[in-house]
C-alpha cells in the first residue's frame, strides 16, 4: 500500500494529466489491465456545479484497507478526488485498478467504486445560486451509523 496512490486536489481534477501519469506507471510495472473510472459533474437540476468536503484521516484509512484487499489479488488501486468547488462538465473523482489480467481488475473496479460511494468520508453539495446545498437525498449513512441516537435506540 502506498499513500501516494490517494491524491487529493482542490477544485476539478486534471483528468488527462492524472490518467497519463497512472498509465505510464502501470506500463512500467508490467500490468496488463488498467481500468479507470471518471466521475464528471453533470448539468442537471439547474445546478451550477458541485462542491465537496472530505475528511482525510478516515479517507486515508478507508483507502489503505482497499489497497491491502487489492494487493492480495495482485492488483493496485489508485484514486484522486477533489475538495471545494467543481464546475459543470469537470471531474471530481477518478479511480483506477491495475492488475496483470483483466478479470480481477473488472471485478475490483466495481467493488471499489461502490464501496467508495457507500463509505468514503466525502460530502457532496449542489451549488445553486452560488450557495452550497447539502445533497442529503443522494447521501448514504456510513455502515454503523446511528449509535449516538440513544433515545431512538432505547425505544
Amino acid at each position, binding site marked *: 500500500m502506498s499513500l501516494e496512490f490517494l491524491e487529493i486536489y482542490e477544485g476539478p481534477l486534471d483528468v488527462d494529466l492524472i490518467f497519463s501519469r497512472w498509465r505510464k506507471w502501470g506500463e512500467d510495472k508490467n500490468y496488463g489491465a488498467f481500468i479507470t473510472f471518471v*466521475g464528471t459533474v453533470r448539468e442537471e437540476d439547474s445546478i451550477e456545479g458541485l462542491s*465537496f*468536503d*472530505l*475528511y482525510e*484521516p*478516515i479517507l486515508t*484509512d478507508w483507502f489503505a484497507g482497499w489497497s491491502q484487499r487489492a494487493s492480495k489479488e495482485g492488483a493496485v488501486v489508485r484514486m484522486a*478526488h477533489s475538495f471545494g468547488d467543481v464546475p459543470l462538465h469537470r471531474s*471530481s*473523482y477518478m479511480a483506477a485498478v491495475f492488475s496483470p489480467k483483466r478479470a480481477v481488475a473488472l471485478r475490483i473496479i466495481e467493488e471499489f*467504486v461502490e464501496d*467508495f*460511494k*457507500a*463509505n*468514503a*468520508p*466525502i*460530502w*457532496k*453539495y449542489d451549488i445553486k445560486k452560488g450557495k452550497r446545498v*447539502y*445533497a*442529503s437525498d*443522494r*447521501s*448514504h*449513512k*456510513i*455502515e*454503523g*451509523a*446511528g*449509535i*449516538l*441516537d*440513544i*433515545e*431512538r435506540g432505547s425505544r
Partner: protein
Amino acid sequence: MVKVEFLGPIGKKPIEIEAKTLKEVAEILNKDEETKKWLAECAVAVNDKLVSSLDVELRDGDRVSLLPPVCGG
C-alpha cells in the same frame, strides 16, 4: 476534556466536553436540539477510527468525530 467534531454538512464548530465514555458523549449530544437531529444519521469515530458501539472509554484529549451521510464522486 474530550473534543467533539462535527464533519461535513453539520456545520457546527467543535466543542469540548467532560466525558469518560462514548455513552456519556451521546447523552450530552442528545440534550442539544440542533445536534440531536443528526445523531441517527451519523457514524462515529474516536481518534479517527470508526467505532460500532458506545462502550468506548475516553481519555483526556481524545477526539470524537460525527460523520453524516456521505456521497463522494
